[in-house]
């Protein structure tokens, strides 16, 4: 793409390339996607680090995210303020972790945070129930939800404290063959 872009300084682009899994071209393309969400809010010049945050509603309406039942949690986990309002940094970070080049451990870490609805560093039964209901839009009966949550805890809980810690989750992900291909957004 040449050195003709004036959006970022060379150091900024360099830093982004080191901190994400994207190439120069992709970073610029992602910047334009970010800007397309709210052209009047996002300036074309990021060399002086403007403090621009896009509200969650705009992020959640992106075609890549709008059908995802976890879009709110994803935005919350990656946003600085924890409410889903994302700066460009958060935006790039999010798609970098969700790209196909990110390693499994990194993805597992963030997946854990996404599924941890009450942010207590554990996936407990209530977190599981919320996850399940978001996945199936409340179409399972109470009994079935309870049985599934019990089974999940049975399968994955290693230290027998009735909930999943990060280590349990990561151990389980190692043995989940689909995780890398499903926890992946193409943009």
């Amino acid at each position, binding site marked *: 793409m040449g050195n003709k872009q004036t959006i970022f300084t060379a150091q900024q682009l360099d830093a982004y390339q080191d901190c994400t899994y994207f190439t120069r*071209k992709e970073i610029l393309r992602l910047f334009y996607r970010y800007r397309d969400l709210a052209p009047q809010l996002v300036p074309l010049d990021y060399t002086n680090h403007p403090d621009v945050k896009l509200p969650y509603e705009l992020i959640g309406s992106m075609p*890549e995210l709008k059908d*995802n039942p976890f879009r709110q949690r994803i935005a919350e986990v990656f946003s600085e*303020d924890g409410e889903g309002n994302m700066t460009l940094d958060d935006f790039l970070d999010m798609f970098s972790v969700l790209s196909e080049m990110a390693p499994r451990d990194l993805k597992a870490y963030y997946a854990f945070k996404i599924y941890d609805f009450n942010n207590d560093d554990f996936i407990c039964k209530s977190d599981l129930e919320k996850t399940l209901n978001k996945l199936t839009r409340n179409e399972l009966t109470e009994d079935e939800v309870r049985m*599934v949550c019990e089974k999940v805890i049975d399968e994955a809980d290693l230290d027998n404290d009735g909930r999943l810690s990060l280590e349990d989750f990561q151990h*389980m992900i190692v043995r989940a063959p689909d995780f890398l291909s499903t926890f992946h957004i193409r943009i």
Partner: protein
Amino acid sequence: METDAVFFTDHSGRITSNPLLDQLPSYQSLLYRRKSSVSGPKRRSSSRGRLGSSSSGKWNMSTFTRPFEKQKSQVTEQQPIRELAKPMAEKRRDKTQRLEEAQELTNWRQWRQSSHRYLRRLRDDAQEWLSSMKLWRGDIHLIEGMFGTGILSYFSFLRFLVVLNLIIFLIKFSFVMLPIIIAPYASGNITYNLNDAGVCSVYPSSARRGLVIFHEHITDLLSGGGFLEQTYLFYGYYKVDKIHFTNVTYNLALAYLLSTIAYLFLSLIWIVKRSARGFKRNLVQDEDRFQSFCNKIFAGWDFCITNENAARLKRSSLLYELKTDLEEERIKQKIADRTRKEKCRIYLIRLILNLFVIGVLAACFYSIYVATIFSQEAQMTKIKVNFIVDLIYEYLPSIVITLANFITPLLFSVIINYEDYSPAFEIRFTLMRCVFMRLTSIGVLLFSLWSQITNCEEEPCICGYNHLLYSCWETRVGQEMYKLTIFDFITIVAVTIFVEFPRKLIVKHCDCGLAKWWGQQEFAIPQNVLEIVYGQTICWIGTFYCPMLPAICTIKYFFIFYIKKVSLINNCRPATRPFRASSSNFFFLGVLLIGLALACLPVTVSVAQINCSHACGPFVNFNTSWEVLPTTVSQLPSGAQTLLFALSSEAFAVSFFVVTCLAMFYVIALAGAHKRVINQLRDQLAMEGRDKRFLIQKLCQAQRLSPVRSPVSKSKPRSPSYHTSFSSNFSEGVFLAHSPPDSSTHV
């Protein structure tokens, strides 16, 4: 969770570090691991301020972390920043920090770091360029978004086959056809196989004479006879023995044989390499049944889906899968509760049904045999009845095979309902039966062809084959393979146009009960995969007899991609029984390997056993095609000869076999040992967790009984799994209250 649960703040409000927690053995080992390992402290980010200070047990480690971070980044070999689980701002700070530190390093280290970075960038760019060169990238992206990763794997499998066939064709072309074509231009002198005017080398020309009716051209095109027979398309045309260029003599017969071996070998290696990833995962997950719920909940939703319809369907398929799994649990319970009498009854039913299946298969194979013989005889007698009827006689084996492959899966899926297996096993077993049916039907066709070829009126045959009927039998076999390929392609196109599109129109516009029962088309992945594996097996077998068949197959798969894609997007809805991507990759390549193994068999038998025809082809001067190799070897210098003889001697083969067996047993033993260790460690983890909880409970009790800063009584039960350093620090005075066991030790 109380924020002051674990720590007491001192009077200035700053949270002090807890020397007691630092002494915990698990925390110590975490520190040790951080110093010496590459993996970053993922837990570090729990200190992100973003999640609010009201969350439990999270204390700002900023005063704590700086010294550790500096230490870690200096000591460890720089882990790429982008693999750290931190927010972007922290990563950038890390980067500037590293840059500063880099200034302090020696020149050589700096150069090494920067060269690593440069190489990594280069590799990323190269990978991106390579993947942009991939065929059909945009189309597959679209399909992935609409239908998810299961169907995506089918299309990328198709793409793999296109590339494989292209490479096979290039091998054949460059080693067999190219020398013949460029011989006149490179001043090469071609020596043809001598026509020794014996009975066996009579090869009547099959070109049509006189006025040729138009539809006969079409018949020729569709059956590979007539004007197509004496072309580069078939084996019989390559009557070249050697090509003498100015400096070197090119032995075409040897090249023909070796290129056959080369493409079979190349296919094997490529498929094994591609399936190695999936196989490793499958081996690790042989207890996959035990994690099925976790997989569905945490890795079940395809984040790639961008289509509302697809999202709705994915949701309902997940729901269906969960319900099926719960149902399976109930069935497992039911099976475990079966009485003796019921078991006997079930086994009897299964035996009868399996015998029935074998009977059906035998009937199909017999009908293929009869059809082949009838078709061959009809072609031999050359009575022209009618254009259409002639064509049907030519294509009779293909038609029978296709019919059998259409009916038997339906039959199998009906039968399996009565055999009372668990749902997952049902799917797999039906699939196995279908695979067996498809691939063995080709074998039966070839067997019946050969029985015809080696069947002479006076036993034994003079030339080793029936030279009266089959003056050039390899071309004949090549023609049958060609016909199978063409018919396969026609079938796929016809089914798409005449069955799938009308079905969609009917279901969309007609409101009758039949339409509702039939429902919209589902893209059945297993059946589609079997179709293309069947085509690929024919290609592998046929390439020896019809060197341009790979090119035809490449073009065929190319068109099939677009046909299937259009049909998928317009007619299909995603399957209610979704096919998981990971296991499906392994399944596709596994079936392809079975096809390859089955393809090697006929080629090997015909190369080594059956006498090659004396009237056509490059092996006229030899008895069997294989004889080229020994003849060539005997012309090599004696050193090379002795080496080759040693390599092919029994002593070498046996010792090689023994060494391979030993290596295999070693690896199996190692894997078993690792598994046992993993189980032991898992039990140990569970024990540790329980110990910790127990101890913390006791501590809480003790704290409640006595005031906070007084030393605790020594009657604390000491778990044997803790180090003694733990108890020695009790007197330090800061105690744990209601903290969750794990978070207190994870920093």
